[in-house]
Every structure is written in structure tokens, then in C-alpha cells.
């Protein structure tokens, strides 16, 4: 009897997870795309900077986010985990989180008046199977004069 109740809860969780989870993910991706379009004009660079002569001001900025997967995806991934292979549900989670963290970094930098973000770094850490935290950090810089932009 108890087993049946547990199975019912799992089924409800899976349904809720599937329905709301996939909707949320779609909305999140659309939101990411919109914000990306608005911020496209600020380049983000990853390579080592050897020459800072065209910049006049620099400051560290950070963007972070903690995102969790829905129950359906977690469940499917744990089954796949038994057999090995790619966990595409977690791949999309990591992808979304990274994009979100970088966009947040850009949004903070823009408020300060940045023209470029240099030496971007990404760090990730797992939060005890509850979700993943992505940290994006970099140095925002302003151009010396507007001729360069």
C-alpha cells in the first residue's frame, strides 16, 4: 500500500517536472536570447591581454547563478547513469547556467559603463545534487575615447 502511494508521488512529480520543467527551460532560453541580443555590442574576451593602452578604467565584475533541473530530467538522468553515456539533460542545464552567468556579468558591467569585458573566467560547482552553481568573472574596461567603439 505504501509502495503504491510512493509510486503515485513519483508519478505526480514526474508529470509536474516534465510539464513545468520543459516550459521553464524554453522560457529561459527565450529570455537568454533576448538579453543576449541587447548586450551583443559588448565583446567578451577570454585571451590574455597584453596591451591595455586603449582602455582607461578597469574593474572586476562577477555574475553567478544556481540552477536546478526538474524532477523528470533528474529521474531520466539517474536511469541513464546506470548504463553510461551522454546526459543531455545536464548538458542543457550547464549551457543555460553558463549563458545566464555571463549575461549577468555583462549586465552589471554595463551599469558601470563598460565597453568590453576582458579575461573572462568560468567556475562551476555542484550543490550536493540539488543543482549547479556557475560563476562568471572578468574585468570590465572602458574605452579611452569613443573613436575606438
Amino acid at each position, binding site marked *: 500500500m505504501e509502495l503504491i502511494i510512493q509510486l503515485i508521488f513519483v508519478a505526480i*512529480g514526474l508529470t*509536474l*517536472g516534465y510539464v*513545468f*520543467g520543459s516550459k*521553464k*527551460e524554453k522560457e*529561459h532560453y527565450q529570455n537568454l536570447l533576448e538579453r543576449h541580443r541587447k548586450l551583443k555590442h559588448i565583446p567578451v574576451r577570454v585571451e*590574455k*591581454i*597584453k*596591451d*591595455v*593602452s586603449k*582602455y*582607461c*578604467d*578597469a*574593474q*572586476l565584475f*562577477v555574475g*553567478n*547563478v*544556481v*540552477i*536546478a*533541473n*526538474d*524532477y523528470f*530530467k*533528474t529521474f531520466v538522468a539517474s536511469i541513464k547513469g546506470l548504463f553510461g553515456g551522454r546526459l543531455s539533460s545536464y548538458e542543457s542545464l550547464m549551457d543555460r547556467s553558463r549563458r*545566464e552567468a555571463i549575461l549577468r556579468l555583462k549586465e552589471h558591467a554595463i551599469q558601470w559603463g563598460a565597453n568590453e569585458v*576582458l*579575461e*573572462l*573566467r568560468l*567556475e562551476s*560547482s555542484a*550543490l*550536493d545534487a*540539488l*543543482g549547479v*552553481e556557475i*560563476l562568471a*568573472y*572578468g*574585468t570590465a*574596461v572602458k574605452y*579611452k575615447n569613443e573613436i575606438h567603439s
Partner: protein
Amino acid sequence: MILTTIDLIPDKMITEHFGIVTGSTVRSKNFARDMFAGLKNIVGGELKGYTELMEETRDEAMQRMIAQAKNLGANAIIGIRFSTSDVAPGAAEVFAYGTAVKVS
């Protein structure tokens, strides 16, 4: 205090070099108590409470690093990096490190 991840600071010259400065905080990751994280794990999405928690933890680690740099007499930290690691079951360390310098 100027903070950057790059090694050069625009329009400024490095006059003195103090070496590595670090700051770290260890935080408990015991999220099981939080109801809302449990709910969010059904529908997925951002865990705003934990985003803020990690932000505060990281700010604290940075403040400790900045304090160490100030003690040395530095006015800028270059080449800053962050690192998060699990130090014990249920605990995570946020570690910030960089090179303390004096610029003019």
C-alpha cells in the same frame, strides 16, 4: 582598491609587488532543510536563495583577500581568480586569490 582579472591596469604603472593574497570562506551546503529548494527540484529553475548565498560567501572571501592586501600596503589586486571546492560532505570552500601590487 582596484580589482582586476587581467595583469595590467589601464593608465597606471605597477610600482611595487607584494605577492599572492588570498581570502577564503567555508560555507555549509546543507540545503536539505530548505523547503523551497525541494519544490524547485521538481519543476527546475533558478534557486535564488542559493545564488544569493554563494554571492555573499564569495563577497566575504573577497573582503578577506582585500584586507590582506591592504595590510601589505597594496592599492590594487591583479590576476584575481576564484575557486570553489568541496572540503567536507556538506561544506564548500570559496577561495579568492590574486597578486597584490601598488600602482600609481
